[in-house]
């Protein structure tokens, strides 16, 4: 209950630092979700709808990557972008951008895997029906997206949820720097380490509220555009 009171106090009126942290969190999660979807959805559609050599191997690989431990993803990105690493010249370590890069590495397999199995199972009858009506490939693809948008939305929200809740990778590559790369999860970690458990929990409550708001907004938008 103490935590709920503290969460309320942080929000009304909003704490300046909290707003900044939420801003960084949203920026990181939105950018990484967007990029993962731009890569993962077409890839997933391709894998889900076509048959080719090595498909089952590729699917196994993607399923393995779906379980990639965030800390490992963080370490990979860290060792690539460290000062003396191959991309050290870019000077990107400890920035919000690099956190998004690590997140993309983590969520793209999730988007690809989920969307390919979605296409494989629920899009089959749509494709069959649309092709039977003589629709073009492009029109068929658009119909699939339109028909399956609830499932696709859950793929996207799943990716977003992972991104917003992730702590291992972002703390390694982002460094949890105050006013710069601190996000909700690393802030919660920090407060936990400080021993301020109820304050940390208050931040956790706010994080859940943000996640809920994003979910609600997304399904509202989809429902609004239904039957369009």
């Amino acid at each position: 209950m103490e935590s709920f009171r503290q969460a309320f106090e942080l929000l009304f009126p909003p704490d300046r630092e909290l707003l900044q942290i939420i801003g960084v969190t949203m920026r990181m999660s939105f950018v990484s979700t967007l990029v993962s979807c731009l890569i993962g959805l077409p890839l997933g559609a391709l894998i889900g709808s076509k048959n080719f050599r090595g498909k089952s191997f590729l699917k196994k690989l993607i399923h393995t990557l779906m379980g990639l431990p965030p800390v490992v993803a963080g370490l990979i990105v860290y060792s690539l972008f460290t000062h003396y690493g191959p991309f050290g010249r870019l000077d990107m370590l400890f920035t919000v951008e690099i956190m998004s890069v690590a997140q993309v590495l983590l969520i793209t397999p999730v988007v690809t895997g989920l969307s390919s199995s979605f296409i494989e199972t629920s899009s089959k009858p749509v494709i069959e029906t649309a092709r039977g009506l003589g629709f073009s490939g492009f029109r068929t693809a658009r119909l699939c997206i339109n028909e399956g948008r609830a499932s696709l939305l859950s793929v996207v929200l799943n990716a977003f949820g992972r991104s917003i809740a992730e702590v291992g990778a972002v703390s390694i590559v982002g460094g949890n720097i105050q006013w710069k790369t601190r996000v909700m999860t690393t802030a919660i970690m920090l407060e936990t380490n400080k021993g301020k458990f109820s304050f940390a929990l208050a931040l956790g409550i706010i994080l859940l509220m943000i996640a809920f708001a994003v979910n609600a907004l997304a399904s509202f938008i989809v429902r609004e555009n239904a039957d369009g």
Partner: protein
Amino acid sequence: MVEIKGLKKRYGERTVLDLDELSFSDGETVALAGANGSGKTTLLRILAGLIEKSEGTAKAPGSVLYLPQQSYAFRGDLVRNITITGAGKQTAVELLEKLGLSHLSGKKAKSLSGGELQRLSLCRVLAKKSELLLLDEPTSACDANGAALVIRAIRDYRDSCGCTVVMSTHSPMLAVNAADRLVVLENGKVEANGTPEDILSNPGIQWAKTFTAGWKI
């Protein structure tokens, strides 16, 4: 006009379709019969261009419509499910009327029963013009009344555009009432080819025999 010569379809080692010669003429309605796995759907899907043949030729006209056996309801109401093909609203209303679905036209298509949805799916293909109409078991989910509506709608469509209709079926009622010719397939080959009446009364044909014997189990 559909012309098939030496058409084969293989999946790995298994040959599921092996047709020497078969042709369907314009304005003709053909029923394809045969046990499960006899190659009916495979033939329809090759003619529809949905799968590749392994060898041989299958000449079909340019404009083909294909209704899969598994019906699908698009989002939205029944009218939208038909106008999605580009047909006008008036056409949609007439088709729904013809297939006995008028009273449901404002309902969501996803809420239809299996038989209703199958008739709606038929409306969708009938809303477009074509030279070849391929139907995969168009009455499989219908009751007798629904099947009668389907048969009449298919006949009217054929009469209005003079196209070829090829449909697979397990229903002798559909074969007798809607088809000019019945082709019985077995293991991918033609077992019989003739008028429905002749074939159904020929005790030498496996499909007809199982059908007549099948009433009593």
